[in-house]
């Protein structure tokens, strides 16, 4: 398919699950607005829809009620879903907006169902990629996967995200609690993400243990995010207890935007040792909040942070502890990371990305 004048009237989006507070849900809603602003009709169809967004989307099987000749579908590929075979059978021109997904090997031994689901996602990617007229990847890392799966035409455009939530007014109660903790001294290390084996929070705990032993005995680790893995969460809690770090590791569960802003405002450094990241929105949020980033370069992380973070080649505790020490105590390094982080975050922020996405889509399907 090539760009042509008088392109499709409607460019609809399909997504496995539409949630209000996750990266792909936000991306999908912002892209819908951008598509509408560009002149296309655009609706969202999903296999599952969060109650708060019930008015904004339709179940995917309701698409025939809205279908018109010449429609184009954008599939927000995040995980295995009934939407994938539905689109494959439907045969409409398909744009694959690929967010990457965590491979089965990262759940092995922890979540048998997640292993199966990830394996199915791989099959669905192999099914859809060759059919897609365009593959939109969030990073060069994901672009290579798309091409490997058979996608012939690809473009790299980052995630659309609303990073303003981390600079909004912080929750005063949470801010007061964190200030109270800081009064006792010691660095505050922050990670934001679901508690799940692929995010490797246990590596963060090991790093904290080493950091406290070698450099800063009063340092704290804040793990912000809900969990989708009971087994991993239980193991993490047991591990923290065994290491005597119960008072130093704060596991918050899911938090509000205001609470998240308070955590970013209080953090000395943002540390990620994830084994896999398809993009890493919290990394950019840390940059927006002016928090130096230290991260392992797994998955697409190196593409996301570019030269605006300390990029670790390994997650072994001594190495991470040494990097943390440097990021917490070297004023020049902190200033460089904060300044380059803000510059990188600006490159990845809303308006620029939305325009790039619309341009990439129009280049293939034509303007409305």
């Amino acid at each position, binding site marked *: 398919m090539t760009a042509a004048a008088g392109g499709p009237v409607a460019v609809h989006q399909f997504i496995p699950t539409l949630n209000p507070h996750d990266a792909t849900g936000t991306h999908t809603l912002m892209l819908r607005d951008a598509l509408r602003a560009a002149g296309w009709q655009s609706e969202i169809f999903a296999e599952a829809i969060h109650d708060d967004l019930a008015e904004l989307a339709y179940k995917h099987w309701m698409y025939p009620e809205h279908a018109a000749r010449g429609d184009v579908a954008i599939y927000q590929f995040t995980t295995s879903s009934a939407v994938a075979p539905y689109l494959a059978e439907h045969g409409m021109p398909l744009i694959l907006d690929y967010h990457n997904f965590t*491979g*089965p*090997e*990262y759940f*092995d*031994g*922890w979540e*048998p169902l997640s292993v199966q689901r*990830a*394996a199915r996602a*791989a099959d669905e990617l192999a099914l859809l990629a060759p059919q897609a007229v365009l593959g939109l990847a969030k990073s060069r*890392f994901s672009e*290579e*996967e798309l091409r*490997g799966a058979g996608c012939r035409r690809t473009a790299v455009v980052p995630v659309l995200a609303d990073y303003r939530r981390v600079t909004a007014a912080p929750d005063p109660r949470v801010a007061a609690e964190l200030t109270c903790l800081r009064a006792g001294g010691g660095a505050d290390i922050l990670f934001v993400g679901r508690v799940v084996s692929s995010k*490797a929070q*246990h*590596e963060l705990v*090991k790093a904290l*243990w*080493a950091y406290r*032993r*070698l450099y800063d005995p009063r340092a704290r680790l804040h793990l912000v995010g809900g969990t989708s893995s009971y*087994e991993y969460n*239980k*193991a*993490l809690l*047991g*591990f923290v207890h*065994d*290491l005597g770090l119960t008072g130093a590791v704060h596991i918050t569960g899911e938090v509000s935007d205001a609470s998240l802003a308070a955590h970013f405002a209080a953090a000395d450094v943002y540390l990620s040792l994830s*084994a*896999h990241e398809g993009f890493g929105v919290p990394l950019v949020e840390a940059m927006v909040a002016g928090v130096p980033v230290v991260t392992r*370069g*797994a998955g697409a992380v190196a593409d996301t942070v570019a*030269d605006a973070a*300390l*990029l*670790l*080649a*390994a*997650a*072994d*505790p*001594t*190495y991470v*502890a*040494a*990097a943390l*020490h*440097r990021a917490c105590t*070297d004023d*020049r*390094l902190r*200033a*460089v990371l904060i*300044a*380059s982080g803000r510059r990188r975050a600006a490159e990845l922020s809303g308006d620029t990305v939305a325009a790039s996405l619309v341009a990439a889509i129009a280049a293939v399907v034509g303007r409305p």
Partner: protein
Amino acid sequence: MTDTEATMPADPQAYLDQVMAEIADEVRARRASGDLPPKLERELDELFLAHSPVAGRGGDLGEALRMVDAATFIDPVVPIESERAAGAVVKKGMRSLLLWYMGWVTHQMSQSAAAVSRALHIVDGRLQELERQLEVQRVPEAGVVEFPALHGPDAWWVEPAVATVATAHGRILHAACGDGWLVRRIVSAGGDAYGVDPRSHVVDRADLGPLDLRAEPVAEHLRAAAPAGLAAIVLSGTVDGMAGGERSQLLSAIGTRLAPGGMLVIHSVSRAAWDGADAPAGADLAPGRPLRPEAWCQLLEQGGYEATTARPGPTGSDFLVTAVRASIVTPYPPAER
């Protein structure tokens, strides 16, 4: 000029590279000082593994059955302690009120769980019988087979191997490490190296000092290592006598643990040397035979490695294969177990 401009180096990436190099120096100094002995890092790994589910500890069916047995009985008599005044009385009243109902339900659930447990024990018994029957056909795991003239600090391939991996940014693994002769060389050349070897008597005998040497098989070690956590891997005396399936499992594990762009270096003896009269007895006892250099190159290229080269040794007794892990190859490698 703004404060930011005053702070920002002319080349930020070069500045960060310099910082990372200084951090690597600091790590080496810390390791050498013994501030955080390798033993402690290993104990951290083992401690976390102890909390992982049964599958994460190797999928032992007997242990799983013990957990099932322990969870089979469901107690309908809930605890009634309370921090609130009269709370215990209220809870006791509710318990008395509901016990006949909950007891009836939990009795059936316990019976159901016990039936499942009995079935699993029968399956376990049959599996054990099958394993006994299969044992006679089992292909033994290959041990470490070292040739005195080819596996040591004076071997011809040591310098090129060290030169290939020493500049890698991250941890470098050598297997089989023996007493750490190659690990020591790589560390001296600036690399952050450690080693594993299944021969615990060799590792235990070694003069460790700051060296990180671990007595465990390389495949087992890699299964427990973090994905993409290694910058380079050197194999010597390890792969030569492996049977096909064991070699395939090892390469699969390496494929997920070696970071994209990471170096894989394999030293292998030739078939002629393997079959020579002066070969060690381990060569006879091994389940497999060494691959030829061409076979290694083909195997690695099919497995997603680039820049594969094979360099023959001066006497034709051995060769050195080097390869670079491609940035993206097989995103979904086959399961390792």
